[in-house]
């Protein structure tokens, strides 16, 4: 299963090492920190305050407490027709 050819092994090892070095360097430089903030980059403040019709009252309360007063969505906000 493992190729018996030396060039194959060396080439694979070198390039895998290069990829690993790049990733390690990125980690050391702090690119992989603060994941919560990274995950929230997609949201405008508005998004998190929109009333979502599928949410239970408990969900809504939780959302209101966390993000502030809920706002009605525009018609077709979720990608459909009104």
């Amino acid at each position, binding site marked *: *299963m*493992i*190729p*018996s*050819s030396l060039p*194959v092994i060396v080439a694979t090892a070198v390039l895998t090492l290069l*990829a690993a070095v790049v*990733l390690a360097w990125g980690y050391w430089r702090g690119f*992989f920190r*603060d*994941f*919560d*903030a*990274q*995950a*929230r*980059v*997609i*949201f*405008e403040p*508005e*998004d*998190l305050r*929109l009333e*979502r*019709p*599928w*949410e239970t009252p408990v969900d809504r309360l939780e*959302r209101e407490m966390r993000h502030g007063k809920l706002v*009605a969505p*525009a*018609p*077709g906000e*979720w*990608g*459909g*027709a*009104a």
Partner: protein
Amino acid sequence: MTAPPTGAPSSDAAALGQENVRAVAAARGLAPEDLDIRLRADASSYTVVLVLFAIAIGWLLIGSIFGDIASLKLHWPDFLTRQSWLTFGRVRTAHLHAVNYGWATAALIGTSLWLTPRLVHNELKSPVAALIGGALFTLGIAVGIIGVLLGFSDGMEWLEANRYTAGPLLVIGGGLVGLSLFRTVAARRAAHLYVSVWYILGAFIWFPMLYVTGKWPTWTGVESAAVNWFFAHNVLGFWLTAMSVGAAYYFIPKVLGRPIYSYQLSVVGFWSLAMFYSLNGMHHLVGGPLPTWMITTSIVASVFMFIPVVATGINLHMTVVGRFGALRYSPTLRFVVLGAIAYTAVSLQGSFTALREVNRVTHFTHWTVAHSHVGGYAFVTFVAFGAMYYIVPRLVGHEWPSARLVRWHFNTVLAGIAIYVVSLTWAGVAQGLALLDARLPFQISVERSLPGLYGRSLGGLILTVGHFIFAWHFWRMVRMPTGAQPGARPPFHEAQPILYTDEAEAGRPQTFRAAAHSDQIARAPAAHDGNVRPAQGTS
């Protein structure tokens, strides 16, 4: 009706990028840099995204028709045999190119061009380059397909488009789009680069590398087979899948209003996809005349694909879990979530199919074609549909005109792909088992696959109906007003995004909102004459 506000371009200039942004800002009495970033991003990508979506839908219809013709020929072999340009071997290739390089590519590039400005919190840079690039790429695909129909093929599956006529158009076109994207990301204002941007950037680095490798003119013999399937499989993973997964990572949390389940998993998912997917391609040649170690490497990599697929699957699924009710309210979620599920399914199916024991039965059969449609349709196309349902309203400034057409579209394509996949998989297994038994004449494998082939034609025709429904709806969307707004509206290439706001009155930051109540419409009649103005009573 068509007199533009002061400072905006004339209405026939098809305002692009910066001009569009300036127009929107001027209409609201703001400097462009003070305009809400979301509006600036959308305004800058407006023209190129809508044009690419229109092109994509055109290819979807063309590709569907080619696909139907090819499918009918397989069980009615005397259908349309007189003309050389309609022979199965050419029509099948035309279908593949039209749906993958035409529809899926244009739809996903359009989605990426809309997503990237939004994610980097800046406008799309070089939108004219992106538009020209999209047009050149489309022309290249058309040249390739027409060439194939006329009998000019470079001979390798997925790479048939002539390298001297179509090739330069594809390379320059793709390069211009890539330029626009990279410049946009380089000009980012967001503090972080969201995972979707990595997928999009990755796609635009990987595809050129794959294409150059695949089209290099010196390959011969079995090495050309290795290169062929290196390209063809990786174009799925590193081009179509990359942009589709990137889109799913955005739309699912965005609509749900919850961040993705585990951002760490998305890092794992991205890099392990890159590492393992690239080694998969030889699994199309299991048992073939290639060094065993290459094929074994591919089988091992195919099984290792579990890691990125499970990581992405967990991420997308766990974000939705507990909120599946949202699918009832959001066509975007309906399509994208089902697409994400299909992604997990097709990848696990792929890992399974690569194992030698399974491959013995499925290789060379219709199973593979069915599998490719789970990926290319139930995953990629569904994600593209979901993205378009979300994006287009934000560009033209009003919701889709007809809930019924949305529902019909969704129901038809869901039924169509289900019938397609089930019939063809069944045909493939029956065919494969018959082929494996040397006592059975070849004829048996053909006869046993026939019922499934009829089923596939039925599924395909239903899909085509769904596509025409969607195309019709898109046409209505960009040309006509919604019921809520009286009076005629200018066609989309002249329209500015029309936004009403009552928050400007209270001095709070303005946001994209269509009129939620009829009294808001009554208060802003001036907005209907094609100009963009704030609601009456605001500055």
